[in-house]
């Protein structure tokens, strides 16, 4: 009798597990991903590594390297609730390392996004404090990728390296790195959609973000290579971090049918 009860209980448990697994699986399958493409620009023109540009103050600058982390994506619904993009403690899922020199890194997907109407997107330029101090990571967060500080361990959130004739550093180098510990230079960015984005079972969207590097100098803080050739220590990096959050804008959003998403991957 006892055995039969056990058997019945086991069957019930198995059924529950299947049901739960089914639900979980269904949820994961439900909804399409949202594609994000990033273009680095200076004003309206595409950024070219090595080209010379001028700030509004007349300082010259060029970029040789531009890399940064984006993470903690959220989509705001019309009813002011949020869809939080899943991140996993076991992998670097949800953490994106954008590198101007690597075309593939400038196009990625978040989601799957539940069906609904969304009015804006939020993300972090950098890595959240919890993950920044969570030990050895893999994938985009692998410290061997070189986006990791050893003099104050933690990720380099935003890395801009170039030159400026006004820089007093050796070879007129311009070096802006933000990252590190206690006073986190990770900055949150919220961008409102001009028209709400609909995600349905058949259609998702592609967000084309522009990151305007002229705003690195002409942003919330006016940064001048003559007085700030290098920013790395927490104090100097705070202003660079503020400006890095102001680089982003939505250039356009277009509808992306399910078929197009499948092809893109």
């Amino acid at each position, binding site marked *: 009798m006892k055995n039969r009860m056990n058997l019945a209980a086991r069957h019930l448990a198995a059924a529950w597990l299947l049901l739960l697994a089914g639900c979980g699986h269904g949820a994961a399958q439900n909804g399409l991903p949202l594609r994000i493409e990033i273009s680095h620009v200076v004003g309206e023109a595409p950024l070219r590594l090595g080209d010379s540009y001028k700030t509004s103050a007349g300082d010259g600058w060029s970029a040789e390297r531009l890399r940064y982390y984006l993470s903690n994506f959220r989509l705001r619904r019309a009813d002011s609730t949020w869809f939080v993009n899943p991140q996993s403690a076991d992998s670097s899922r949800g953490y994106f390392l954008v590198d101007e020199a690597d075309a593939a890194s400038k196009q990625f997907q978040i989601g799957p996004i539940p069906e609904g109407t969304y009015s804006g997107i939020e993300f972090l330029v950098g890595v959240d404090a919890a993950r920044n*101090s969570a*030990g050895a990571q*893999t994938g985009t967060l*692998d*410290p061997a*990728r070189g986006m990791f500080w*050893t003099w104050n361990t933690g990720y380099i959130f935003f890395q801009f390296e170039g030159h400026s004739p006004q820089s007093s550093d050796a070879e007129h180098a311009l070096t802006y790195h933000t990252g590190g510990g206690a006073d986190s230079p990770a900055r949150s960015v919220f961008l409102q959609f001009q028209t709400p984005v609909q995600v349905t079972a058949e259609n998702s969207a592609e967000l084309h973000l522009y990151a305007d590097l002229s705003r690195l100098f002409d942003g919330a803080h006016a940064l001048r290579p003559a007085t700030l050739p290098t920013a790395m220590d*927490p104090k100097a990096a705070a202003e660079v971090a503020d400006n890095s959050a102001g680089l982003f804008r939505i250039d356009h959003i277009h509808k992306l049918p399910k078929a197009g998403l499948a092809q893109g991957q």
Partner: protein
Amino acid sequence: MKRSTPWLFALPLLGMLAAMPWAQAWMTAHATPRLQVPEGWPVPRYDFAGNPVTSAGFALGRRLFYDPILSRDGSIACGSCHQQFAAFAHLDHRVSHGIGGVNGKRNTPGLFNLAWQPDLMWDGSVHHLELQPVAPMSNPVEMGGSLALAVDKLRRNARYPELFAQAFGSPGVDSQRLLRALAQFTGTLVSADSRYDRFVKGKEAFTPQERDGLDLFREHCASCHREPLFSDFSYRNNGLDAAPRDAGRAVVSGRDEDQGRFRVPSLRNIALTAPYMHDGRYDSLEQVLDHYSGGIQPSPTLDPSLAHGVPLSPDQRTALLAFLDTLTDESFVHDRRFAETHD
């Protein structure tokens, strides 16, 4: 049931074998340490739940610790500057020489009880035990390479891919596995069996002089060198220089009030870890006591508790030194599990 019976006959034989001295020595040398929290100690800061210590993982970590393959030119291992007989400090070296014989700027600290340490390095620049090795590996005056370079060398090595697979249950050499294996070794370096520890447990007596030394220690030193880890892990300026030559903690924090502040080091195994201070300027504990009794240099960031120094009579000095000797953990520095092996 039938099938397992023959094994039962082998059990007494195994027991006899295990009782033999050579077998015991073998087991001591090969057993895998686990992080056991000594009685009265706080909860460790490093959580092994995400990196469970296994015999193969620990052995891999130990092998990596002693292997110069982690340096750029294969000349410097972690163990080159962290010597077990010196409680993993670098005996007689004010600062250590790294790749190409270049000197570093700070004294090599001893390595023990790291699982309890909130931040690592003299200035607290490393916030996680697993990530600590990245600093010396990429420092041009230490191992001069990089994490990526080390991973690449290990992948191409004849032995390591197999050892990584054994340690982590699947093929693959990556930086996370490298750092976790090292943490299995460094995180289980527990030193908690000094004469002081046995005295606290009531298992061993102190001489009256050692007892006096303990009282003096608790009166004058223990507010910073807090028992049982003998550090409160704060950052303080202990008055070495009127104008600090090394900004210390301020490099990491960017705050002026941290100028010349360094992590309060543990005093465990202190008799073994000469020279002393962040720059290794003092060769002996006598010189250290000279400093605290009459050599404190005032500066804006000097720790207030040291404003008037720690004056000690000659007898008190002798007693304090006798007590500091009781912090030496002989079983730790002779623990064969932590020693370099050549298997």
